[in-house]
């Protein structure tokens, strides 16, 4: 595993270029000068959602794409589940936004061209698409397992077929692909892919299942956690995750600053408590 040093985050005023509804999600395209420069898959941005809502809202960077005259734009996937996220999805293009990023420790990439399984559940599959591209550049065969509660909550399953050698789709209601959850399918997909590294993003139960499956198959796992972030910059200690360190000693780390990507075998999943998810 290698990790090249990343450039630091910036806090800037950005501009919303477009909002597009795709299924249950909104895809937001925005420009935020300097944020895209240091982007690595697994990074996220924090956005202010009004003066009276003090907690930042954090979103995976789904894509960095060139936009004429603007340099690079960011694409985020937002599910309007809370007041802040809903406010964000209702903004008109041209709205100014306070954006901080790129934040967090990204996915670590393998040095060798090994087989990789990418598991994404719901909108949290967002960071796996740019990851798949980076892995393919390194000649790593990529297998995708994409999950959602139903078809509307499946992120870009069509696009997934372009970026992976094999794609498995599972939905809780069976509306697309196999009926079931990541936990039901991951063992089989992992065995079939012969993956040596598993990358996962999604709710805690999904990540826990992936980490356990990886361990059972002797694979490395990199899990991207969603915890209730307030500042998203490592200041407030609101997003602690219990882990076992390299030295075997238990401690807590901050999901925003020491994560969000953590080794699945280091997270003390049973001690994480309720699946609080993100602040929305």
């Amino acid at each position, binding site marked *: 595993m290698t990790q090249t040093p990343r450039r630091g985050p910036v806090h800037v005023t950005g501009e919303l270029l477009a909002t597009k509804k795709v299924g249950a999600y909104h895809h937001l395209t925005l420009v935020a000068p300097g944020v895209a420069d240091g982007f690595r898959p697994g990074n996220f941005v924090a956005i202010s959602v009004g003066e009276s809502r*003090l*907690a930042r809202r954090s979103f995976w960077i789904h894509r960095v794409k060139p936009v004429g005259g603007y340099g690079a734009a960011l694409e985020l996937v937002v599910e309007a589940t809370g007041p802040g996220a809903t406010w964000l999805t209702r903004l008109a293009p041209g709205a100014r936004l*306070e954006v901080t990023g790129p934040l967090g420790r990204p996915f670590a990439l393998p040095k060798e061209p090994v087989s990789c399984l990418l598991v994404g559940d719901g909108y949290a599959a967002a960071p796996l698409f740019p990851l798949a591209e980076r892995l393919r550049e390194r000649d790593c065969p990529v297998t995708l397992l994409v999950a959602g509660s139903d078809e509307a909550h499946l992120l870009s399953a069509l696009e997934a077929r372009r970026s992976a050698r094999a794609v498995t789709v599972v939905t809780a209601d069976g509306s697309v692909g196999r009926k079931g959850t990541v936990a039901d399918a991951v063992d089989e997909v992992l065995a079939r892919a012969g993956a040596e590294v598993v990358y996962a993003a999604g709710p805690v139960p999904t990540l826990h299942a992936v980490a356990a499956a990886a361990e059972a198959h002797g694979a490395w796992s990199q899990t991207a956690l969603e915890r209730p972030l*307030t*500042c998203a*910059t490592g*200041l407030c200690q609101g997003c602690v995750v219990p882990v076992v360190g390299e030295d075997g000693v238990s401690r807590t780390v901050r999901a925003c*600053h020491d994560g969000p990507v953590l080794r699945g075998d280091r997270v003390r999943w049973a001690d994480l408590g309720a699946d609080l998810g993100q602040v929305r």
Partner: protein
Amino acid sequence: MTELAGLTLAAPVLVASGCGGTGRELAAYGPLADLGGFVTRSITLNPRPGGPLPRIAETPSGLVHAVGLQNPGLEPFLATELPWLAQQGTRVVVSIAGSSLGEYAELARRLGRSPGVSAIEVNLSSPDAPTTGVFDVREPFHAASVVAAVHRDLPRGVPVLAKLRTDVVRVVESARTVLDAGADAVVVGNALPAAMPDGRQAGLSGPAILPVALRCVAEVCAELPGAQVVGAGGITSADDARSFLAAGAVAVQLGTALLHDPTAAARIVADLHDVVPEPTID
């Protein structure tokens, strides 16, 4: 230049305790040397893992928080955090919290001898003290006994700041008592005692509490002329800071604003430099 408790500060804006991480996270957005000072999260003698999640909840213009004074404890702080902070060219104020007078005295003794510590801020107003097990300051004489213990064990030249609760009814009496006990300045104030949605003890911070903090600062400054007061509570702009300075504070601390915008302190320092021109009358 700002003079606080015998220290010269680069600006009248400091990072409030518990809102600047270890300092490194904030320094990613701009040099700490531009600020008046950095107050650390409250350091305790022994490591504290902090409270259960959720620790922070959003309320209109506020944050309710029950972090539980998570910190690495004195030894790791001295070994890994303080040396870095001391090199940043800013005033390092170490906030301390103890469960007994003896712990406060030991913290003062050890920190006072450590290079790089500009001042000690005594946390006398933890909004969830009964839950966290730190010394519960309910009466002004409790606060005075802590300040006296700290003052006695600090080398001369290391000033003591006493951080008080923004309790409008008691704040003047509390300030007078801690100043009599040896505090060089008072910080008014801390998060308001509050509750998390599930009822756990917590503190309320952010713009929601600014008018309460400003009232407390104004009363202390009016009743105790000559006392050095640092104002804190919900400040997010240079105009907010000017309100506290106009009320008599010599400096302000910024907390929650940094969680919303990690560049807020530097921005306010810069905005305070932009002198508003006097209106000219022809």
